[in-house]
């Protein structure tokens, strides 16, 4: 198991729109865990799938609890970032929507670009813990594939207009190559046009360790060492003099 698709739940009672959104998201490599037409159904799906990354919620839903009430429950119990879908009908609704602090909005009628932007925005805001304050903010889409976000125990890496989730424990090491950086997992390699130092900043220091000018390793994935070389997977990673003491202090020889 390597990188995972980001899992999205869609809560929308207009089934054609829900399916359209599902189609569009699938096309750009997101995984749809389900479509719920009501708050109750949405809560069932959330409980069944404990690894949902983002929820898209239409504000106006049939039933007793609308999208805003659902968002309130999610905020209180589940702590999952959510995005409001709305055609922005009246101000009182918008005020209520703001009160539950959504991480992004998608305004109907939307297109592919708006969906991509809002997902990126929601992830960025969630990782920084800054809810979206304005409904009508000009949303700038970050063109470059250099977004790295750490949310919970995963790294969210942007690639080809979409994000992928890489659990931290899956990462073996990161390798710098001039302005690029390669993230190696057990099964895949991701190349980012981003300096190593910038990615390193998003990694937990008790789990990742700089061993060389060009290498950051996952401590837990080290399976052995010989001289100034660390064995990770089937690769040998050099340890430079600068970091040697610090590195080998962690690995006590018997």
């Amino acid at each position: 198991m390597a990188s995972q698709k980001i899992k999205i739940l869609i809560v929308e009672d207009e089934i054609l729109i829900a399916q359209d959104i599902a189609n569009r998201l699938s096309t750009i490599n997101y995984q749809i865990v389900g479509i719920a037409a009501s708050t109750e159904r949405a809560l069932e799906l959330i409980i069944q799938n404990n690894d949902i990354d983002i929820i898209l919620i239409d504000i106006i839903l049939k039933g007793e609890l609308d999208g805003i009430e659902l968002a309130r429950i999610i905020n209180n119990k589940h702590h999952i970032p959510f995005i409001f879908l709305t055609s922005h009908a009246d101000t009182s609704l918008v005020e209520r929507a703001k009160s539950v602090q959504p991480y992004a909005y998608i305004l109907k009628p939307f297109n592919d670009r708006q969906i991509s932007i809002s997902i990126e925005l929601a992830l960025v805001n969630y990782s920084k813990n800054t809810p979206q304050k304005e409904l009508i903010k000009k949303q700038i889409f970050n063109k470059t594939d250099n977004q790295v976000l750490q949310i919970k125990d995963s790294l969210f890496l942007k690639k080809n207009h979409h994000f992928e989730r890489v659990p931290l424990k899956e990462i073996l090491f990161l390798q710098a190559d001039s302005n690029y950086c390669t993230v190696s997992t057990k099964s895949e390699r991701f190349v980012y046009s981003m300096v190593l130092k910038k990615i390193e900043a998003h990694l937990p220091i008790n789990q990742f360790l700089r061993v060389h000018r060009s290498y950051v390793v996952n401590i837990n994935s080290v399976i052995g060492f010989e001289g100034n070389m660390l064995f990770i997977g089937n690769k040998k990673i050099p340890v430079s003099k600068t970091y040697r003491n610090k590195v080998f202090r962690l690995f006590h020889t018997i």
Partner: protein
Amino acid sequence: MNKYINPFKYKRLIFYVFLYTSFSFSQNIEKIDSLLNTLKTDKLQKKEQVLTLREIAGQHPDLNTALFYAKQSLKIALEIDDSILQAISLEEISLLERKLGNNSLSFEASLKALKIYESLKMFEEQAATYTQLASNYISDEDYDIAIQYLKRAKKVYADSDNLQNHTLTILNLGEAYRLSKHLDSAATAFQQTLHLNKTLNSDIVQGYSQGNLGMVYNTQNKLELAEENLNDAISILRPLEDYYSTSVYLAELGTVYNKEGKYKLAEAKFLEAHSMAKESGLKEQIRDFNAFLTNFYEEQKQYRKALEYQKQFQIYQDSLVNKENVQKIEQLKAGYEIDKRESEIDLLNITNTNQKYWVTALTIGVSLLLLFAYLLYRGNKKVKVANASLFKREQEKALLLRELNHRIKNNLQMISSLLNLQSHELIGHPAKEAIVAGKHRVEALSLVHRKLYQEELDTRILLKEYIEELVLGLFHGYKASFEPNFKIDDISVSLDTAVPLALVINEVIINALKYAYININNPKLKLILQKDKDFLDIEIIDNGIGFNANEAEKNNSFGIKLIYSLIEQLEGVIKKLHSKNGTHWKMTIKLA
């Protein structure tokens, strides 16, 4: 009715004998107070008011105030149109004016009263008035007229049974004759009164008749008769304590003795008269007796005494002159006071009338104000109600419009979603492209609506923001690996312009993204929208493989047709400029 008879008048020694009972001063005050109280508190009839006021006038020690009440009395009498009461009031006024020295006013009042009595044939009252008038004329030393009036009175009384009045009138007539030097007529008159008094048997009539007769005899130098009559008069009047008359007769007797050469007796009588006058405080008499004594002592060559009495005479003369002055001033003051009172009354009336006007005006004003307030309130209420309903309607309208926009956006979303869903099912199918193109067209339209109703309900849209998002959306949708280059003016356009323009740009950009960049290493696209007065210049430049009309028509004939049609709708022109590399579209449209 009270009667007043003036029995005689001596030059400089004026006698008025009032035959009605007089009250003491303090009694007068009490009476007046009680009368005033009655007038104020009791609801008297008008007639009673007239009589009460007249009585107050008769009692009041201050002549001015008395006159005021008398006039009030007359006023009410006139109001109730009672002739007798008017006459009574007029008589009172006449008397008071007389006392105040306003003789002409007094005559006027008396004559008015007389007229009333004549018309009513009230003879006794007429006679009384004649007497009053006569008394006035005597004061003015107009004895002939006085005598005529007294003769008339006498005639009236002769026909009546009123012996007393008849006698007193003759007595007055005699005095008038005496003063006008008709001494024989005077003597006859006094002899007649003495004759009549045998039946009447009045000491006063007896005393006055004899005293006056004595004075006549003295003037006629019938000294013995004079001495006899004067002595009788003094002996009758002295016990009656009529010091005034007594002192006058004593002095007269003194002159008789003086003429007779009985100087001792003369001196004794002069001194007695002098001391009596002094005791009784009769200043005018004191002055006159001083003059007598001065003359007497001069004749006797007792110059020291003469000087002494001359001095006393001077003192009393001065005092009396002063008194006259004071009286004159008092009269002037009285006149002024009356004027003042009258003007005050007028003023009060005017004030009263003014107040009435004010109250009326105020009432009308307040009524009008209330009316206006009510009308204003009603108008306001109406306006409020109208405003409220208008506001409600506006709100409903806004709500409906929002709901409508919501539905438009939702439906546009549905159309777009339907096309998108269908395109997914048509993988590899030739129709897919048409469906996708349709989807993009719908999305271009949708974007207008999303932008339009985002914040305010408006019919204009910001060109730059909208076109940029449209183009970026297409770049995203077609997974373009480069960024477009924008140069767009910051202007707003109407919905009527925005929709066709969006569709035109949509087609041009899609065409470029689909066909222009095949095997192009460094793809570029530039979009220029600039306002030129009432026109908008649009340039879309790419560095692609160039545009071949024939080929394009084959590939996307509908798109090209759409562009030309919409430009026509926008009243614009479209040109494809010659370019070395790629395609350069230039369009000019009219800004609505």
